[in-house]
């Protein structure tokens, strides 16, 4: 990685303006995002491999076998940190040539002049304040790549360093046929670099939503905005998205390399740069050396990583993942969760991730959007969605839950409220709104279990005697079903071995009589719709 560039020096100016080496110039440069465009002349300061030498006339160009073009960038220009292999436009001019000569002519001129350019070992150097790194790439290759500036923008997507962008979905609705609502009035704003999951059961509209963002489906109403720009009418090949399909959709007739390079091909990236970037991204997904294989020769996990590489190598504005982990086995799934998250964070790409697995959503996302029947039930950070679900659906869908419907009776002296559940009286936390009937949520891990004789149970605001109806050994924890009333079955999760020996003498078995206890603060009221 090259650090921030600190100064620019044009090594030789156009004939009209002469200037010595090393001066910062204020024009004729144009800084156009997303690329920097500037005119750089053929080197007047040339270095060979042996060491730095400065040359003042052209004859050295003819004799040296290796040339390097020295460039550095000027103050006063907005720029981002540069990646190796990052693209930029360069127009190479030689003194004596007119301003309007095309780079193609220049190339021909150079090569036919027998300057002895050795493309493979040609490199660009960017001089930073203290060090210089070589930007890989031959002069010839890179110049060739820039000879086709118009083709860059043919498909409407530019390729290059991107600032992470925000994605906004405004009141998107979509229906299929008559009466089948896929998505209803969906609005969401995703911050740049955020990973948002769309979570919900099958048929909730999450995949449809993703396809709308990618451009494969048109919404009936609403708009999709990328970085403030309305792209709803753009076809998918003109949006700058990287998509990972559930089936991976790797091209079976192309090698891994060709697969990953496909998006770059569409963006007319130079062959050399393509090779470098593909190589780099394959390293990132830990698939080095598989470039020449075909997808059918790879395992499921490897195929998925190829698909991921293909999506990220183009440096898209947004990364869309459609249940990418559902075809993998459990162990691999866990591994890939971490890897995907890591890559996403390193690259800082805004990501939208569709899944029906709530564990995945909770572990990977910055925010979780729970969807049901085309609508957003709740959108928030994982802890928020888990601890304070805003609807019954969310409470049921995420994690295990004890949900009880009853009526609120009134306040107690302890600052809690009394909740009537059949014949039981529970103490729940205070809520600002008081409705006669309410639903409360108690997470199974917030409930403690004691032997009836144990006095510690009395210390909790809620404690009830009960009988264990079922006990499941889950490995790290034990799941219990405890009946505390005729119609009330409590789900409880206990650590199977606790760190403080609280339960060392207590082995829960079916039929045992126990006391269950939880604090009032452990229960949450679920807002009614």
């Amino acid at each position, binding site marked *: 990685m090259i650090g921030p560039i600190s100064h620019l020096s044009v090594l030789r100016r156009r004939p009209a303006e002469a200037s010595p080496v090393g001066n910062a110039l204020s024009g004729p440069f144009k800084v156009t995002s997303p690329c920097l465009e500037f005119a750089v002349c053929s080197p007047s300061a040339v270095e060979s491999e042996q060491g730095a030498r400065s040359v003042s006339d052209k004859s050295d160009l003819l004799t040296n076998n290796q040339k390097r073009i020295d460039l550095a960038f000027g103050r006063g220009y907005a720029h981002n940190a540069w990646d190796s292999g990052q693209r930029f436009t360069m127009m190479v001019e030689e003194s004596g040539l007119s301003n309007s000569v095309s780079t193609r002519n220049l190339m021909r001129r150079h090569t036919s002049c027998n300057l002895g350019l050795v493309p493979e070992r040609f490199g660009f150097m960017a001089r930073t304040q203290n060090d210089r790194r070589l930007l890989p790439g031959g002069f010839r290759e890179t110049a060739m790549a820039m000879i086709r500036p118009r083709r860059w923008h043919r498909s409407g997507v530019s390729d290059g360093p991107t600032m992470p962008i925000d994605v906004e979905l405004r009141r*998107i609705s979509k229906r299929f046929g008559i009466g089948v609502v896929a998505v209803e009035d969906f609005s969401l704003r995703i911050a740049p670099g955020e990973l948002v999951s769309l979570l919900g059961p099958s048929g909730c509209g999450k995949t449809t939503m993703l396809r709308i963002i990618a451009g494969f489906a048109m919404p009936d109403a609403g708009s999709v905005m990328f970085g403030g720009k309305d792209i709803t009418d753009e076809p998918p090949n003109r949006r700058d998205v990287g998509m990972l399909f559930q089936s991976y959709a790797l091209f079976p007739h192309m090698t891994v390399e060709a697969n990953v390079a496909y998006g770059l091909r569409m963006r007319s990236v130079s062959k050399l740069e393509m090779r470098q970037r593909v190589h780099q991204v394959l390293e990132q997904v830990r698939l080095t050396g598989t470039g020449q294989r075909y997808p059918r020769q790879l395992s499921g996990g490897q195929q998925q990583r190829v698909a991921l590489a293909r999506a990220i190598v183009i440096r898209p504005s947004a990364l869309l993942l459609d249940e990418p982990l559902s075809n993998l086995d459990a162990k691999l799934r866990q591994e890939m969760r971490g890897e995907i998250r890591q890559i996403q964070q390193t690259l800082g790409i805004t990501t939208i991730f569709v899944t029906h697995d709530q564990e995945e959503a909770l572990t990977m996302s910055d925010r979780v959007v729970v969807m049901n029947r085309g609508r957003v039930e709740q959108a928030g950070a994982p802890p928020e969605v888990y601890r304070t679900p805003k609807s019954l659906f969310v409470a049921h869908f995420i994690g295990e839950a004890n949900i009880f419907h009853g009526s609120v009776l009134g306040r107690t002296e302890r600052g809690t409220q009394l909740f009537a559940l059949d014949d039981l009286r529970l103490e729940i936390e205070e809520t600002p709104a008081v409705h006669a009937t309410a639903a409360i949520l108690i997470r199974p891990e917030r409930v403690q279990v004691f032997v009836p004789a144990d006095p510690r149970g009395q210390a909790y605001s809620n404690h009830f005697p009960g009988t264990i109806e079922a006990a499941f050994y889950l490995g790290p924890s034990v799941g219990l079903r405890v009946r505390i009333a005729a119609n009330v079955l409590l789900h409880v999760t206990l650590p199977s071995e606790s760190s403080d020996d609280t339960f060392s003498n207590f082995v829960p078995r079916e039929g045992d009589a126990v006391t269950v206890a939880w604090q009032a603060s452990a229960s949450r009221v679920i807002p009614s719709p």
Partner: protein
Amino acid sequence: MHAPRQRRWWHQLKPIVWLWWSMIGVIVLFLLAPIIVVVIGSFSDQAYLVFPPQGLSLRWYVQAVSSRDFRDSTLISLELGVLAALLSTIIGIVTALGIAARQRPAADMLMGLVSAPLLVPGIVVGIAMLFYFTDIGVGSTFASLVLAHTVLTLPYVVRSVLAGLETVDRTVEEAAHSLGASRFSVITTVTLPMIRGSVLAGAVFAFIISFDEVIVTLFLASPRVTTLPVRMYNYIAYTSDPSIAAISTLMIVATVTLVLVIDRYVGFARLF
């Protein structure tokens, strides 16, 4: 927030989509053109077939149905079709069972052999049949036609039955076997009933192929034994009144109905 932008379905139809579907429409029209022409032309009231017809009438249907020649030919075609289909189905089932019992590569070779009639050009089969039956002294009789049609339709039946056999769960046969059925009983009481859809499809297909067969039959036909397609061919080659169109329409209707019948039982895609 302001009201969302509405998108009507016609906004989403770009010109290229119209172009695409028009092209498909033209291609479909091209596919069905001659059939449409014949069907509509059969209602013409003129003595020659003109499309589009000036006036409508059923006179050609009346003429076609009352023609002795056409009635005889239809009967012969039907008899031939049924016999050939029957024979071909029986032999086909047995052959398919024989092939299914074998492993590759023997099974593949046998399948290739059975498919041979499909590969050899019709004209070659036609003259070969003529030469053969003349050579062995039988000549062009109804019996030789039946044999020829059986050979021609056999590959279709075998293919269809084999496809059906592939869907049979081996474990069901094994269950029957373990319950005491002999191999023969297993086949007759378990396997065949399970694939009766495929068998029926193959049989009906064989009938249709035989009914529509022209080229081989042309060589084996004689003045006494002329099938409907052959008579139609001769008619067209020498005359040209629309009664042919009427008969053709009747044939089309009959065939399409039959096709719908098999589609009920077994999806068509499986046969290909």
